[in-house]
């Protein structure tokens, strides 16, 4: 058990899970409090299992529009504030994935120091993320419109594909910052440009593969979740479903860690090629 915890991919996935869990609670908290007050003694609570029934959603949308609007504002504020925290800790987790074996980031102090070093760069990347995902949406919609006529599913597939590509590019830039310690966005873009071009197909196939495997695992866990939810609600099934859901999130975080590590290794290999070739080239 301790061995697996020492595995940087596993450990970083757990840290990602904790980070996401914290964010999930913080951001949804106001909404959950509103609903709890409304449903705590209403028969509507019986319609939340196995999944929330459409008429419950309808009732919320129709009768609690003001509450929802207030919640949207509060969630946005929490998201922005939590965004700083989330970015800070994700810097450290990236360092664990990339440099864990090479540099001393084992101590919490070193973890925080690395996080503090990389934080400005990761914050700049948030702005770039808006641009990257906007482009991904544009391309996803455009290609989806063209090819979606052949097969409706392609609309969704293209959107997911371009989102994956945007996410991959942002991960590469974060990797670069974590690797070099240089938080300049311009330098990161410049220094990775050539290697991305050279290793595009490997990055593309590797990330797609990771995403597909992740989806398969996710789907299997989803089937398990659906199976458990086929039973009547009781505290035991409720706990089991919560655990499965967290396992699904963990699987998702694991795929993210694997992709971060994979992208790092591919870009590293390209850089070494550019320097004259190694056995990795």
């Amino acid at each position: 058990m301790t061995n697996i915890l020492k595995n940087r991919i596993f450990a970083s996935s757990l840290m990602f899970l904790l980070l996401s869990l914290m964010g999930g609670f913080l951001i949804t908290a106001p909404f959950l409090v509103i609903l709890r007050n409304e449903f705590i003694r209403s028969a509507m609570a019986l319609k939340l299992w196995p999944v929330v029934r459409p008429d419950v959603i309808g009732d919320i949308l129709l009768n609690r529009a003001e509450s929802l609007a207030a919640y949207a504002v509060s969630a946005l504020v929490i998201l922005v504030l939590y965004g700083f925290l989330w970015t800070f800790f994700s810097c450290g987790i990236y360092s664990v994935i990339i440099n864990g074996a090479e540099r001393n980031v084992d101590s919490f102090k070193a973890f925080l120091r690395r996080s503090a070093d990389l934080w400005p760069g990761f914050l700049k990347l948030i702005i770039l993320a808006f641009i990257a995902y906007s482009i991904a949406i544009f391309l996803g919609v455009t290609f989806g419109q063209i090819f979606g006529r052949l097969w409706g599913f392609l609309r969704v597939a293209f959107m997911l594909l371009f989102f994956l590509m945007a996410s991959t590019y942002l991960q590469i830039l974060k990797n670069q910052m974590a690797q070099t310690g240089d938080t300049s966005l311009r330098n990161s873009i410049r220094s990775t440009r050539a290697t991305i071009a050279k290793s595009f197909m490997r990055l593309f196939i590797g990330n797609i593969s990771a995403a597909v495997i992740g989806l398969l695992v996710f789907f299997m866990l989803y089937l398990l979740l659906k199976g458990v939810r086929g039973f009547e609600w009781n505290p035991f099934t409720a706990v089991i479903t919560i655990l499965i859901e967290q396992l699904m999130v963990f699987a998702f975080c694991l795929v993210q860690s694997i992709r971060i590590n994979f992208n790092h290794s591919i870009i590293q290999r390209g850089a070494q090629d550019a320097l004259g070739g190694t056995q990795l080239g």
Partner: protein
Amino acid sequence: MIHLAYVLATLISASATNLSPDLPTSYKMEVRLDTSSQTVSGFESISFLNPTSDTLQEICFHLFPNAFRDTSSTYARESLKIRREIATGNTSALDVTDIVIDGSPVDSSKLRESGTLLYIALPSKLPPGDSIAISLQFTLKLPHVNMRLGYNALGNYLLSHWHPILCGYQKGGLIDFEYHSQSEFFSNFSSYDVKLDIPAGFAIGSTGELRELSRDSSRAVWQALADTVIDFAFVCGPAFDVTESDTLGIKLRYFIQKDHANYLKQADWITKYSLSYNSEKFFKYPYPVFTVVDFDVAAEGMELPGMVTAVFPGKRSGPVGKAMLNLAIAHEITHEWFYGMIATNEAEEPWLDEGFTSYVTSRLLQSGDDSLSEFSIFGYKVSLDFPQQMAALMTEAEWPVALKSWEYPDEFNYSATVYFKAALVLQTLEEYLGRAAFDSALAQYANAYRFRHPDTNDFKRAFSSSCGINLDQYFAQFIYGTARLDYGIRSLEFSPAADTTMGGKYKINVVVIRELDGIMPQKISLALENGAEIDTIWDGIQKLGKITLYSDSPPLSATLLSYGLDENKTNNSLYLQSFSSRIMSFEWDMVSIMEFLIAYFL
């Protein structure tokens, strides 16, 4: 489930069904479809009997295709989409010439055109019960299909509301409305004898019965005969696969686009089911032929006399498409009763056809073992009724149900009120009266007014009389008015009864609150710990209702009967126990979804 005995009974009674014996109007037409110029030209002769108790000095025709002649029409002014179509040159026009009444040509000074209406001053006054003969020539320029008229990219044609149609009379009054972007139609029952000259290679389907009169290498002439219908429509073209079937003694004809052939089985099934359901609930479908057409018009489906169109789910394959096709065909077939045979005024009282049809369709789709309007999202079922009910309640009853179609400010409010809120109004009435009483009253109304033109008052009278209940307040609030309904249980308390002779060991106090202005009697059900249930009725008039009951067991919960129109269902029940743990499951679901979103952006 349609029982075999019923099917046999309706087959036996088919010959006994009478259509309306007295028709004030009969049409004879000879028309030719020219596919090179995209025009239909023809001759129309009409025998018209004054059905009113007044002497008529003029008659009026609807020229519906002229709504799309240019952007000055009422329709175009109300519809940006149509203005754009017209701007790109996609127009239609219906020109009438050579009008002759009782053998005398009518000069232009006797004509008065107003939008899509053409008034003709009669050469002599027409007393009640007297007849005249009108004949005219007309040319129709066809558009690329817009709302429900024209040709499509495959070369198929749909012609509905396409020829000069006499304005109908209701309760002695002329119904001469302009064609609006949200309005549909109204005309009196008539008989039709139509000769249709079309290209030889075209398949053809129409209102009524068809027979081929002649054919050469390039053209074919068909004759359509239709008795006691409110209009005549036809569809033709080279790109249909035509399949025939039958049910209840009715010949079914399916005009399906070739690439949608795999939906034929489903279309056939839901068509038969819908015809059977409505025949059983109201009265047997009386015409010998029924046609289903796969044609992409402005809506998911369109009702025509003896014929319906539906958008087959080529573009929306999958479970949603299948549910939509079920809904479209079932809805349009139900219109054959609530529009086609109980011919209410679609334009001025649209709720009487759309609301009734939506309500009955919802019942129809839920009448089998599985709901036919449901589709699956990740294995969990969602009903198409849900977005409709949402839309209805989202309007917050801003507009009354009983408005003329053009009095609604936009398409959303029109649809949400006339289709969906009206369906909820009927559902609420059903919940109030009880299903058996409601169904009986609806069947009586349908039978009393078949081949007639009832209005909202007729419906109210029919229901009040059938159920023995004064429905004035209900109609004033929810049909003519804009009352909104929301009742809730405010509190539920109990204590040991001081006096056990009152009926039990426990005194239970329930406080019910009326949150909005709508008033309906409320049925309150108390569930007790010993498994028993106590029901009581509160008239719901006061803002607050305090009800005291006695029982030998403490209560578990108090629940109100949830009416369809009740806007807030969450406050309709109050349990003494807390559902904290159950809610926690849901809370974790929400947190997990948010976790995925956060983890994605790592």
